């Protein structure tokens, strides 16, 4: 029975209430695309598979507006379109319109609205099938010598590749030496700011990297891919080709082989990188066929991209393995070294069994995590996402005491703020004190004053000025 609990504001939360009903921000790729030029986007929209994948990343209202306009030949007057939405929908409608305009799908116009013609024709081709772009991937014929890989081996491959990367990040700096991912991956990690070259050749994880580890797999994957896209220009790779290959992958089917013959040179160069991240699997490095793994086929959907250790779960609830008690003790039913390493970031682990790890959330462990840059919200959402199914019976899921305490420990960091400066005391008279104080106030360097004790505190920058002022006054007084 949860009694009334004091709602503790997180550090840095704004005072206006957050709107949680269906107002989620756009997908990261959409934000990236909005920063590209119209030319780039129009070239991208020539392929039906890219249009379909980008369409799936839009928000529901935006999708509906696009669908409404897709099969119309004439432009629609703006007033007619505005009449389609209800009163509550007015603000989301305007947000949707501006989002679509920035993506150059629905150009802004005060009078009439019409879809971007390239996007319109490609999207129609995507839905009805047709055109000649071959953009959904060419399937290879069945080869008896090399049958396409089965789904379990694809999942195992993707999982192994992905966990190698994450485990390398987690265990850097702890003295263990796990298997290194390939050079391309290491370069990517360094460029994205997740790891940094601290002492010579070894890479150490940064605070952004710690936060990255606690994100759900979809967000992690997209963060790396966006970094890859940003690096594409420097590596002389055409951004449109890279992006259309990725979006084509998201429309492929699991368990089938695709041929590499229709890919451009840029896209063939990408094959190696995609192998390293675990998105595709090839039998050899020069094989002419590749098969996408679950990480690739779920790029634009929200199904779980990685299987769990207990088999492919229906939703992330099947991955839950953490039991958290009200006495801050934590029991994690796992033997996966990556998960244990991630838990070690904010939990003091006490004992380890073949299938179980026992630990306690203490002030020191949470402080250590906070010092690494992880926020209390991330810790709490990680615990919620990976909570054991048995915890579902509790309402709320995590004990309120533990949640509040983690947030309080975070607020402790903000309890004291320090600034450097100089303290001026021992003035001869009240008039002296006030004269100097007024001068300092004119310079706007006073941080604290106490007139009953005749002292004030000035900042570092103002010190030279104040000192000069006092010296001039005392020289003038003595002279």
């Amino acid at each position, binding site marked *: 029975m949860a009694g009334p609990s004091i709602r503790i504001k997180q550090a840095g939360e704004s005072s206006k209430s957050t709107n949680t009903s269906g107002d989620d921000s756009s997908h990261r790729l959409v934000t990236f695309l909005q920063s590209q030029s119209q030319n780039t986007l129009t070239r991208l929209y020539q392929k039906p598979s890219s249009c379909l994948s980008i369409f799936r990343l839009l928000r529901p209202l935006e999708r509906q507006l696009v669908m409404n306009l897709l099969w119309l030949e004439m432009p629609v007057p703006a007033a007619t379109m505005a009449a389609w939405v209800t009163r509550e929908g007015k603000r989301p*409608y305007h947000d949707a319109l501006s989002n679509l305009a920035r993506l150059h799908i629905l150009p802004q116009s005060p009078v009439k609205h019409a879809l971007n013609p390239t996007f319109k024709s490609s999207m129609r081709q995507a839905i009805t099938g047709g055109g000649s772009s071959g953009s959904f991937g060419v399937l290879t014929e069945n080869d008896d010598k090399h049958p396409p890989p089965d789904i379990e081996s694809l999942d195992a491959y993707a999982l192994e590749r992905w966990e190698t990367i994450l485990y390398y990040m987690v265990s850097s700096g702890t003295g263990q030496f796990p298997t290194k991912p390939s050079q391309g991956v290491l370069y990517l990690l360094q460029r994205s700011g997740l790891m940094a070259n601290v002492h010579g050749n070894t890479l150490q994880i940064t605070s952004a990297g710690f936060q990255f580890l606690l994100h759900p797999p979809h967000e992690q994957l997209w963060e790396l891919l966006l970094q890859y896209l940003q690096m594409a220009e420097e590596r002389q790779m055409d951004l449109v080709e890279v992006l259309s290959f990725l979006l084509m992958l998201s429309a492929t089917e699991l368990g089938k082989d695709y041929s590499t013959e229709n890919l451009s040179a840029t896209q063939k160069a990408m094959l190696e990188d995609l192998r390293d991240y675990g998105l595709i699997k090839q039998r050899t490095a020069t094989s002419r066929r590749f098969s996408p793994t679950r990480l690739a086929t779920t790029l634009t959907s929200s199904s779980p991209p990685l299987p769990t250790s207990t088999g492919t779960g229906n939703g992330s609830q099947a991955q839950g393995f953490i039991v958290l008690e009200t006495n801050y003790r934590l029991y994690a039913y796992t033997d996966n070294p990556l998960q244990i390493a991630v838990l070690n970031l904010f939990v003091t682990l006490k004992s380890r069994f073949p299938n179980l790890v026992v630990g306690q959330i203490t002030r020191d462990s949470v402080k250590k995590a906070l010092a690494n840059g992880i926020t209390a919200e991330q810790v709490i959402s990680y615990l919620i996402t990976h909570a054991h199914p048995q915890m579902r019976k509790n309402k709320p899921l995590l004990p309120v005491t533990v949640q509040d305490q983690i947030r309080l420990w975070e607020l402790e960091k903000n309890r004291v703020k320090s600034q450097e400066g100089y303290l001026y005391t021992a003035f001869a008279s009240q008039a002296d004190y006030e004269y100097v104080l007024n001068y300092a106030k004119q310079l706007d360097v006073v941080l604290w004053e106490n007139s009953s004790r005749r002292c004030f505190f000035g900042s570092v920058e103002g010190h030279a000025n104040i000192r000069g002022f006092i010296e001039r006054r005392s020289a003038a007084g003595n002279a």
Partner: protein
Amino acid sequence: MDKPSHLSVVIDLSLTQWTLCAQSTNPPGITLQDFLSQLLAFLNAHIACKDENTLAVFGAFPGQSVMLYSSTGEVTTTTAESTDANTYRPFRTLDSTIMSSIAERLDSYDGMTEEAPIGLVGCLTKALCYINRTITTALSSSQGGEGAAASVDPRILVLSVSPDQSSTYIPIMNSIFSAQKLKVTIDVGKIFGAENVFLQQAAHLTGGAYVQVERADALLQYMMMSFLPAPAIRQLISVPTQDRVDFRAACFCHKRIVEVGFVCSVCLSIFCQPVPVCSTCRTKFPMKTLQRLRDARPLAAPPGNAPPRPPVQKNGTTTPARPG
């Protein structure tokens, strides 16, 4: 929020009605081929919206109701899979499964014998059973975690060209009540033919859209704007609803559509004339009440004609007299 949504489509495939529809010029009609191609584009659009959207298609043939396609793969075809790089494979599978299932069944009907009434009610009940099964499996696997309420937003779309069958009143009302319990929205698209009383009530009671298609060649645009939005988004984008609903019912004894009738005070079954014993709940009514009602009853219309449509407002029905 961006939840996956489920759509079950019930297609009215009565051959006589489709032939009439193709031949009609005022209002302009549409052939079955054109209709199916527009419908397939609409179904592809539904799947295009989200990867996790699910779909089930049922065909109401004369005398039988058949499941033509379902996302969970219960219907398989024997046609070879084509490897076309220009089509998204799920669309291709969906289209070919539906077309081949319809073609197989339609071949078995010849034009000689009189056509049996279509299995619309059978399709409705099968759709509801399918939805119930998918909801219970989804709930049991997610085990009611925080914020994981019904993860599907189910709706049924009925595309109809045939007139009312008054014998189906009771089963249709029962389906509507089950749909209300499951929180399923029933949308209706009337492509040809007069207004369908029972389907109007279905759309109204479950909060769905009822659309009388006037220009059948623009059917795809009607479907996109009225039937594609998921229920969650219908608060933001408005879909057409009716402001005048025909609330007539069919009597339980002869299955005729009536405006004024007699209602049992125990179980609320409707009769067109006073009966001594209620056929549903076996309540006996006193003789004196029956005589009083028979004397006061307006002159009965000859059996077999439906009475002319009354101007009924949305919130009221014509009040039947209550015996006993």
